[in-house]
Protein backbone atom coordinates (compact mmCIF):
# COMPACT_ATOMS: atom_id res chain seq x y z
CA UNK A 1 0.00 0.00 0.00
CA UNK A 2 1.35 3.37 -1.04
CA UNK A 3 -0.30 6.37 0.61
CA UNK A 4 -1.13 9.25 -1.72
CA UNK A 5 1.22 12.17 -1.50
CA UNK A 6 -0.11 15.71 -1.35
CA UNK A 7 -0.03 16.21 -5.11
CA UNK A 8 -1.94 12.99 -5.56
CA UNK A 9 -4.63 14.00 -3.07
CA UNK A 10 -4.89 17.34 -4.86
CA UNK A 11 -5.25 15.59 -8.21
CA UNK A 12 -7.91 13.30 -6.76
CA UNK A 13 -9.89 16.33 -5.58
CA UNK A 14 -9.52 18.02 -8.96
CA UNK A 15 -10.92 14.94 -10.65
CA UNK A 16 -14.26 15.44 -8.85
CA UNK A 17 -14.66 19.13 -9.61
CA UNK A 18 -17.17 19.47 -12.45
CA UNK A 19 -16.36 21.66 -15.42
CA UNK A 20 -17.77 25.12 -14.99
CA UNK A 21 -17.82 24.94 -11.21
CA UNK A 22 -17.15 28.00 -9.07
CA UNK A 23 -14.53 26.90 -6.58
CA UNK A 24 -12.64 28.42 -3.68
CA UNK A 25 -9.44 26.70 -2.66
CA UNK A 26 -8.46 27.40 0.93
CA UNK A 27 -4.98 28.51 1.86
CA UNK A 28 -2.35 25.83 2.44
CA UNK A 29 -2.81 22.34 1.07
CA UNK A 30 -5.95 23.03 -1.02
CA UNK A 31 -4.08 25.67 -3.05
CA UNK A 32 -2.28 22.77 -4.69
CA UNK A 33 -5.50 21.63 -6.36
CA UNK A 34 -5.21 24.50 -8.83
CA UNK A 35 -1.98 23.13 -10.25
CA UNK A 36 -3.53 19.74 -10.95
CA UNK A 37 -6.45 21.01 -13.02
CA UNK A 38 -5.65 20.35 -16.64
CA UNK A 39 -5.53 23.36 -18.92
CA UNK A 40 -8.38 22.33 -21.19
CA UNK A 41 -10.81 22.31 -18.27
CA UNK A 42 -12.67 25.50 -17.36
CA UNK A 43 -13.14 25.86 -13.62
CA UNK A 44 -13.67 29.33 -12.22
CA UNK A 45 -11.61 30.01 -9.13
CA UNK A 46 -12.72 32.49 -6.51
CA UNK A 47 -10.36 34.14 -4.10
CA UNK A 48 -12.09 35.84 -1.19
CA UNK A 49 -9.99 38.98 -1.35
CA UNK A 50 -11.96 40.04 -4.40
CA UNK A 51 -11.31 38.12 -7.60
CA UNK A 52 -13.29 35.63 -9.61
CA UNK A 53 -11.44 33.99 -12.49
CA UNK A 54 -8.10 33.59 -10.78
CA UNK A 55 -5.32 32.29 -13.01
CA UNK A 56 -1.99 30.65 -12.23
CA UNK A 57 0.99 32.29 -10.57
CA UNK A 58 2.71 34.90 -12.73
CA UNK A 59 6.13 34.38 -14.24
CA UNK A 60 9.05 35.29 -12.02
CA UNK A 61 9.51 39.04 -12.18
CA UNK A 62 5.95 39.67 -13.41
CA UNK A 63 4.38 39.73 -9.93
CA UNK A 64 1.76 42.40 -9.33
CA UNK A 65 1.28 42.84 -5.58
CA UNK A 66 -2.14 44.39 -6.16
CA UNK A 67 -3.19 41.03 -7.63
CA UNK A 68 -2.90 38.39 -4.94
CA UNK A 69 -4.82 35.42 -3.59
CA UNK A 70 -6.11 34.66 -0.10
CA UNK A 71 -2.69 33.37 0.84
CA UNK A 72 -1.25 36.74 -0.25
CA UNK A 73 0.69 35.17 -3.08
CA UNK A 74 0.76 36.92 -6.47
CA UNK A 75 -1.61 35.41 -9.01
CA UNK A 76 -3.00 36.34 -12.41
CA UNK A 77 -6.49 37.08 -13.70
CA UNK A 78 -7.95 35.11 -16.59
CA UNK A 79 -9.98 36.62 -19.41
CA UNK A 80 -13.49 36.81 -17.91
CA UNK A 81 -12.20 37.78 -14.48
CA UNK A 82 -13.88 40.37 -12.29
CA UNK A 83 -12.85 42.34 -9.20
CA UNK A 84 -15.14 43.24 -6.29
CA UNK A 85 -14.98 44.36 -2.69
CA UNK A 86 -15.00 42.16 0.37
CA UNK A 87 -18.70 42.44 1.22
CA UNK A 88 -19.57 41.31 -2.29
CA UNK A 89 -16.94 38.61 -2.20
CA UNK A 90 -18.25 37.09 1.01
CA UNK A 91 -21.81 37.35 -0.28
CA UNK A 92 -20.71 34.91 -2.96
CA UNK A 93 -19.76 32.45 -0.21
CA UNK A 94 -22.37 33.06 2.44
CA UNK A 95 -25.12 33.36 -0.17
CA UNK A 96 -24.42 29.85 -1.44
CA UNK A 97 -23.15 30.85 -4.86
CA UNK A 98 -19.88 28.94 -4.75
CA UNK A 99 -20.27 25.34 -5.83
CA UNK A 100 -17.36 23.96 -3.87
CA UNK A 101 -14.81 25.06 -1.38
CA UNK A 102 -11.87 22.88 -0.49
CA UNK A 103 -10.36 23.35 2.95
CA UNK A 104 -7.64 21.83 5.03
CA UNK A 105 -8.54 20.51 8.48
CA UNK A 106 -7.24 19.49 11.87
CA UNK A 107 -10.33 17.39 12.53
CA UNK A 108 -13.66 16.50 10.93
CA UNK A 109 -16.45 14.85 12.92
CA UNK A 110 -18.79 12.22 11.56
CA UNK A 111 -21.58 14.80 11.63
CA UNK A 112 -19.52 17.07 9.39
CA UNK A 113 -18.24 19.49 12.01
CA UNK A 114 -14.99 21.07 10.92
CA UNK A 115 -12.04 22.22 13.03
CA UNK A 116 -9.33 23.92 11.04
CA UNK A 117 -8.60 27.36 12.48
CA UNK A 118 -7.31 26.98 16.01
CA UNK A 119 -5.49 24.24 17.89
CA UNK A 120 -6.95 25.44 21.15
CA UNK A 121 -3.43 25.77 22.57
CA UNK A 122 -3.33 28.40 25.30
CA UNK A 123 -0.47 30.36 23.75
CA UNK A 124 -1.68 30.15 20.15
CA UNK A 125 -2.58 33.41 18.46
CA UNK A 126 -6.04 32.90 16.99
CA UNK A 127 -6.52 33.77 13.31
CA UNK A 128 -9.56 32.74 11.34
CA UNK A 129 -9.56 34.66 8.04
CA UNK A 130 -12.31 33.49 5.72
CA UNK A 131 -12.41 29.89 6.94
CA UNK A 132 -15.69 30.14 8.85
CA UNK A 133 -17.43 31.96 6.02
CA UNK A 134 -16.21 29.43 3.49
CA UNK A 135 -17.03 26.40 5.61
CA UNK A 136 -20.70 27.28 5.96
CA UNK A 137 -21.14 29.19 2.71
CA UNK A 138 -20.30 27.02 -0.24
CA UNK A 139 -22.85 24.55 -1.64
CA UNK A 140 -20.38 21.79 -0.86
CA UNK A 141 -17.46 21.93 1.55
CA UNK A 142 -14.76 19.41 0.89
CA UNK A 143 -11.86 18.72 3.17
CA UNK A 144 -8.43 17.64 2.00
CA UNK A 145 -6.01 16.34 4.62
CA UNK A 146 -3.89 13.46 5.83
CA UNK A 147 -6.02 10.70 7.30
CA UNK A 148 -4.18 10.76 10.65
CA UNK A 149 -1.75 13.20 12.23
CA UNK A 150 2.01 12.79 12.06
CA UNK A 151 1.78 11.38 15.57
CA UNK A 152 -0.82 8.87 14.41
CA UNK A 153 -3.82 10.53 16.05
CA UNK A 154 -7.24 10.39 14.45
CA UNK A 155 -8.37 13.36 12.41
CA UNK A 156 -11.71 11.83 11.46
CA UNK A 157 -13.43 11.79 14.82
CA UNK A 158 -16.71 11.45 16.67
CA UNK A 159 -16.43 14.89 18.21
CA UNK A 160 -13.89 17.55 17.39
CA UNK A 161 -11.67 18.38 20.35
CA UNK A 162 -10.27 21.47 18.65
CA UNK A 163 -12.42 24.63 18.43
CA UNK A 164 -14.90 24.40 15.57
CA UNK A 165 -14.79 26.32 12.30
CA UNK A 166 -18.32 25.32 11.37
CA UNK A 167 -20.97 22.82 12.37
CA UNK A 168 -22.24 20.08 10.06
CA UNK A 169 -20.68 21.72 7.03
CA UNK A 170 -18.32 19.11 5.53
CA UNK A 171 -19.80 16.87 2.86
CA UNK A 172 -16.71 15.00 1.66
CA UNK A 173 -13.17 14.28 2.82
CA UNK A 174 -10.18 13.44 0.63
CA UNK A 175 -7.29 11.88 2.50
CA UNK A 176 -4.10 10.07 1.61
CA UNK A 177 -6.02 6.82 2.19
CA UNK A 178 -9.58 7.26 1.06
CA UNK A 179 -12.46 9.37 -0.16
CA UNK A 180 -15.16 9.60 2.49
CA UNK A 181 -18.64 11.07 2.29
CA UNK A 182 -20.22 12.61 5.37
CA UNK A 183 -23.82 11.45 5.33
CA UNK A 184 -26.75 11.31 7.75
CA UNK A 185 -25.40 7.87 8.63
CA UNK A 186 -21.95 9.27 9.39
CA UNK A 187 -18.73 8.54 7.50
CA UNK A 188 -19.05 6.46 4.36
CA UNK A 189 -15.90 5.44 2.50
CA UNK A 190 -16.55 5.55 -1.23
CA UNK A 191 -13.00 4.89 -2.38
CA UNK A 192 -9.87 3.34 -0.85
CA UNK A 193 -6.35 3.48 -2.18
CA UNK A 194 -5.05 0.29 -3.75
CA UNK A 195 -3.89 -2.25 -1.22
CA UNK A 196 -5.66 -0.77 1.77
CA UNK A 197 -7.90 -3.10 3.76
CA UNK A 198 -11.20 -1.64 4.87
CA UNK A 199 -10.47 -2.94 8.38
CA UNK A 200 -7.26 -0.94 8.41
CA UNK A 201 -9.21 2.19 7.40
CA UNK A 202 -11.64 1.53 10.25
CA UNK A 203 -8.70 1.35 12.64
CA UNK A 204 -7.32 4.68 11.40
CA UNK A 205 -10.69 6.41 11.67
CA UNK A 206 -11.88 7.76 15.00
CA UNK A 207 -15.58 7.26 14.40
CA UNK A 208 -17.72 4.54 12.84
CA UNK A 209 -17.22 4.36 9.08
CA UNK A 210 -19.29 2.41 6.57
CA UNK A 211 -18.02 0.73 3.45
CA UNK A 212 -20.00 2.41 0.68
CA UNK A 213 -17.81 1.38 -2.23
CA UNK A 214 -20.45 -1.01 -3.56
CA UNK A 215 -23.11 1.68 -3.41
CA UNK A 216 -21.06 4.00 -5.58
CA UNK A 217 -20.08 1.27 -8.04
CA UNK A 218 -23.71 0.15 -8.37
Amino acid at each position, binding site marked *: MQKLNREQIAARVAQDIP*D*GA*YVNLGIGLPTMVANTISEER*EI*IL*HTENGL*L*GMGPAPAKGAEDWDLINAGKQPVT*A*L*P*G*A*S*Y*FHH*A*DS*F*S*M*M*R*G*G*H*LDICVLGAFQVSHTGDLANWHTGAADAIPAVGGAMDLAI*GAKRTWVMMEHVTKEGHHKLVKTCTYPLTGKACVSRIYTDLAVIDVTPRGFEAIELIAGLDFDELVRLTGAPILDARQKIAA
Partner: protein
Amino acid sequence: MVNKIAESAAAAIADIKDGATILVGGFGTAGLPFALVDALIEHGARDLVIVSNNAGNGETGLAALLKAKRVRKIICSFPRQTDSWVFDGLYRAGEIELDVVPQGNLAERMRAAGAGIGAFYCPTGYGTLLAGDRETRSINGRDYVLEFPIHGDFALIKALKGDRWGNLVYRKTARNFGPVMAMAAKVAIAQVDEVVELGALDPELVATPGIFIQRVVAVGIQAAKVA
Protein backbone atom coordinates in the same frame (compact mmCIF):
# COMPACT_ATOMS: atom_id res chain seq x y z
CA MET B 1 -16.43 25.25 -21.70
CA VAL B 2 -18.61 27.46 -19.58
CA ASN B 3 -21.25 28.87 -21.86
CA LYS B 4 -24.22 30.64 -20.34
CA ILE B 5 -25.38 32.14 -23.62
CA ALA B 6 -28.95 31.11 -24.45
CA GLU B 7 -29.94 31.08 -28.08
CA SER B 8 -33.14 33.03 -27.57
CA ALA B 9 -35.21 34.74 -24.93
CA ALA B 10 -37.73 31.91 -25.29
CA ALA B 11 -35.06 29.29 -24.61
CA ALA B 12 -33.71 31.28 -21.68
CA ILE B 13 -37.02 31.30 -19.82
CA ALA B 14 -38.41 27.95 -21.00
CA ASP B 15 -38.26 26.22 -17.61
CA ILE B 16 -40.22 28.83 -15.66
CA LYS B 17 -43.08 26.97 -14.04
CA ASP B 18 -46.52 28.09 -12.93
CA GLY B 19 -46.40 29.59 -9.47
CA ALA B 20 -42.77 30.73 -9.73
CA THR B 21 -41.50 33.80 -7.91
CA ILE B 22 -39.80 36.03 -10.47
CA LEU B 23 -37.71 39.10 -9.73
CA VAL B 24 -38.08 41.52 -12.64
CA GLY B 25 -35.50 44.27 -13.01
CA GLY B 26 -36.12 47.85 -13.92
CA PHE B 27 -37.19 51.14 -12.45
CA GLY B 28 -40.09 52.23 -14.59
CA THR B 29 -38.91 51.17 -18.03
CA ALA B 30 -35.17 51.75 -17.46
CA GLY B 31 -33.60 48.34 -17.05
CA LEU B 32 -36.85 46.52 -17.67
CA PRO B 33 -36.07 43.31 -19.60
CA PHE B 34 -38.80 43.65 -22.22
CA ALA B 35 -37.60 40.76 -24.40
CA LEU B 36 -37.59 38.33 -21.49
CA VAL B 37 -40.99 39.47 -20.25
CA ASP B 38 -42.41 39.17 -23.75
CA ALA B 39 -41.01 35.64 -23.95
CA LEU B 40 -42.57 34.86 -20.58
CA ILE B 41 -45.98 36.00 -21.83
CA GLU B 42 -45.57 33.84 -24.90
CA HIS B 43 -44.38 30.94 -22.71
CA GLY B 44 -47.63 30.99 -20.77
CA ALA B 45 -46.58 30.38 -17.16
CA ARG B 46 -49.26 31.62 -14.80
CA ASP B 47 -50.02 32.12 -11.13
CA LEU B 48 -46.72 33.98 -10.88
CA VAL B 49 -45.45 36.09 -8.02
CA ILE B 50 -43.63 39.10 -9.42
CA VAL B 51 -41.15 41.18 -7.45
CA SER B 52 -40.38 44.47 -9.18
CA ASN B 53 -40.19 48.12 -8.25
CA ASN B 54 -43.28 49.06 -10.24
CA ALA B 55 -46.36 47.28 -11.48
CA GLY B 56 -46.11 47.99 -15.17
CA ASN B 57 -46.24 51.01 -17.42
CA GLY B 58 -48.62 51.45 -20.32
CA GLU B 59 -49.51 48.22 -22.09
CA THR B 60 -46.07 46.65 -22.56
CA GLY B 61 -43.62 44.73 -20.43
CA LEU B 62 -44.90 43.95 -16.94
CA ALA B 63 -48.21 45.62 -17.76
CA ALA B 64 -48.72 43.19 -20.64
CA LEU B 65 -47.89 40.25 -18.35
CA LEU B 66 -50.44 41.52 -15.86
CA LYS B 67 -53.01 42.12 -18.56
CA ALA B 68 -52.58 38.51 -19.70
CA LYS B 69 -53.66 37.50 -16.16
CA ARG B 70 -50.48 35.60 -15.41
CA VAL B 71 -49.69 37.26 -12.11
CA ARG B 72 -51.22 36.20 -8.82
CA LYS B 73 -49.33 38.64 -6.64
CA ILE B 74 -46.96 41.53 -7.02
CA ILE B 75 -44.42 42.68 -4.45
CA CYS B 76 -43.33 46.21 -5.29
CA SER B 77 -42.69 49.67 -3.90
CA PHE B 78 -44.60 51.88 -6.27
CA PRO B 79 -47.44 50.34 -8.24
CA ARG B 80 -49.45 53.52 -8.74
CA GLN B 81 -48.22 55.62 -11.63
CA THR B 82 -49.80 57.78 -14.27
CA ASP B 83 -49.57 54.90 -16.73
CA SER B 84 -50.32 51.93 -14.45
CA TRP B 85 -53.95 51.52 -15.54
CA VAL B 86 -53.59 47.80 -16.19
CA PHE B 87 -52.47 47.14 -12.62
CA ASP B 88 -54.96 49.64 -11.21
CA GLY B 89 -57.85 47.86 -12.91
CA LEU B 90 -56.80 44.41 -11.74
CA TYR B 91 -56.22 45.65 -8.22
CA ARG B 92 -59.59 47.39 -7.94
CA ALA B 93 -61.25 44.27 -9.33
CA GLY B 94 -59.55 42.17 -6.65
CA GLU B 95 -57.76 40.13 -9.28
CA ILE B 96 -54.23 40.67 -8.02
CA GLU B 97 -52.62 40.64 -4.60
CA LEU B 98 -50.36 43.53 -3.70
CA ASP B 99 -47.55 43.66 -1.15
CA VAL B 100 -46.13 47.18 -0.91
CA VAL B 101 -42.54 47.28 0.36
CA PRO B 102 -40.45 50.42 0.80
CA GLN B 103 -38.06 50.69 -2.13
CA GLY B 104 -34.89 50.44 -0.08
CA ASN B 105 -36.21 47.43 1.84
CA LEU B 106 -37.07 45.76 -1.45
CA ALA B 107 -33.45 46.18 -2.57
CA GLU B 108 -31.92 45.28 0.80
CA ARG B 109 -34.13 42.23 1.29
CA MET B 110 -33.04 40.88 -2.09
CA ARG B 111 -29.42 41.66 -1.30
CA ALA B 112 -29.83 39.78 1.98
CA ALA B 113 -31.18 36.78 0.07
CA GLY B 114 -28.17 36.88 -2.20
CA ALA B 115 -25.70 37.43 0.62
CA GLY B 116 -26.93 34.64 2.90
CA ILE B 117 -28.17 37.00 5.61
CA GLY B 118 -31.02 35.43 7.57
CA ALA B 119 -32.75 38.67 8.51
CA PHE B 120 -31.78 42.22 9.38
CA TYR B 121 -32.93 45.10 11.53
CA CYS B 122 -33.86 48.04 9.33
CA PRO B 123 -34.97 51.49 10.47
CA THR B 124 -37.14 52.10 7.41
CA GLY B 125 -40.87 51.93 7.99
CA TYR B 126 -40.67 51.75 11.77
CA GLY B 127 -43.95 52.92 13.27
CA THR B 128 -45.77 52.81 9.94
CA LEU B 129 -48.48 50.64 8.41
CA LEU B 130 -45.90 48.89 6.26
CA ALA B 131 -44.10 47.54 9.32
CA GLY B 132 -47.28 45.56 9.92
CA ASP B 133 -46.83 43.15 12.79
CA ARG B 134 -43.14 42.63 12.19
CA GLU B 135 -40.79 42.31 15.13
CA THR B 136 -39.14 45.51 16.26
CA ARG B 137 -36.07 46.21 18.34
CA SER B 138 -34.38 49.24 19.77
CA ILE B 139 -30.63 49.27 19.21
CA ASN B 140 -28.53 52.09 20.64
CA GLY B 141 -31.61 54.25 20.96
CA ARG B 142 -32.87 53.79 17.43
CA ASP B 143 -35.90 51.73 16.47
CA TYR B 144 -35.68 49.01 13.86
CA VAL B 145 -37.98 46.56 12.11
CA LEU B 146 -36.88 42.98 11.45
CA GLU B 147 -36.90 42.30 7.73
CA PHE B 148 -36.47 38.95 6.00
CA PRO B 149 -34.86 38.14 2.65
CA ILE B 150 -36.80 38.01 -0.61
CA HIS B 151 -35.62 35.06 -2.70
CA GLY B 152 -36.56 34.51 -6.31
CA ASP B 153 -36.88 31.32 -8.30
CA PHE B 154 -35.85 33.36 -11.30
CA ALA B 155 -34.59 36.86 -11.99
CA LEU B 156 -35.15 38.54 -15.32
CA ILE B 157 -32.86 41.52 -15.71
CA LYS B 158 -31.40 43.75 -18.39
CA ALA B 159 -27.79 44.77 -18.87
CA LEU B 160 -25.77 46.46 -21.59
CA LYS B 161 -23.21 43.75 -22.32
CA GLY B 162 -22.50 40.24 -21.12
CA ASP B 163 -20.06 37.43 -21.81
CA ARG B 164 -20.30 33.64 -21.78
CA TRP B 165 -19.31 33.50 -18.10
CA GLY B 166 -22.31 35.69 -17.28
CA ASN B 167 -20.35 38.82 -16.40
CA LEU B 168 -22.46 41.93 -16.89
CA VAL B 169 -21.99 45.65 -17.31
CA TYR B 170 -24.95 47.97 -17.15
CA ARG B 171 -25.81 51.36 -18.61
CA LYS B 172 -26.46 54.43 -16.43
CA THR B 173 -29.51 54.29 -14.16
CA ALA B 174 -30.72 51.15 -15.94
CA ARG B 175 -28.40 49.30 -13.51
CA ASN B 176 -30.92 49.86 -10.68
CA PHE B 177 -32.14 46.48 -9.34
CA GLY B 178 -30.13 44.24 -11.70
CA PRO B 179 -27.19 43.38 -9.44
CA VAL B 180 -29.29 42.62 -6.33
CA MET B 181 -31.85 40.58 -8.24
CA ALA B 182 -29.07 38.56 -9.88
CA MET B 183 -27.80 37.65 -6.40
CA ALA B 184 -31.22 36.80 -5.01
CA ALA B 185 -32.51 34.32 -7.59
CA LYS B 186 -31.82 30.64 -8.05
CA VAL B 187 -31.70 31.23 -11.81
CA ALA B 188 -30.78 34.72 -12.95
CA ILE B 189 -31.34 35.46 -16.62
CA ALA B 190 -29.97 38.59 -18.26
CA GLN B 191 -30.94 40.07 -21.56
CA VAL B 192 -28.14 42.17 -22.97
CA ASP B 193 -27.81 44.45 -25.94
CA GLU B 194 -24.69 42.59 -26.94
CA VAL B 195 -22.73 39.48 -26.03
CA VAL B 196 -18.99 40.11 -26.13
CA GLU B 197 -15.97 37.81 -26.14
CA LEU B 198 -14.64 36.59 -22.83
CA GLY B 199 -12.05 39.11 -21.73
CA ALA B 200 -13.64 42.02 -23.59
CA LEU B 201 -15.24 43.43 -20.42
CA ASP B 202 -13.00 45.46 -18.13
CA PRO B 203 -12.77 43.31 -14.96
CA GLU B 204 -12.91 46.50 -12.84
CA LEU B 205 -16.18 47.52 -14.51
CA VAL B 206 -18.11 44.26 -14.16
CA ALA B 207 -21.02 45.19 -11.86
CA THR B 208 -22.44 41.66 -11.76
CA PRO B 209 -19.77 38.94 -11.67
CA GLY B 210 -20.81 35.86 -13.63
CA ILE B 211 -21.24 33.72 -10.53
CA PHE B 212 -24.60 35.43 -9.99
CA ILE B 213 -25.84 34.80 -13.53
CA GLN B 214 -27.03 31.53 -15.03
CA ARG B 215 -28.11 32.60 -18.53
CA VAL B 216 -27.44 35.48 -20.90
CA VAL B 217 -29.29 36.25 -24.09
CA ALA B 218 -28.45 38.91 -26.64
CA VAL B 219 -31.50 40.78 -27.87
CA GLY B 220 -29.97 43.81 -29.57
CA ILE B 221 -30.63 47.33 -28.41
CA GLN B 222 -34.03 47.75 -26.83
CA ALA B 223 -34.75 51.34 -25.94
CA ALA B 224 -36.02 51.77 -22.40
CA LYS B 225 -38.92 53.88 -23.61
CA VAL B 226 -39.93 55.79 -26.64
CA ALA B 227 -40.80 59.22 -25.37
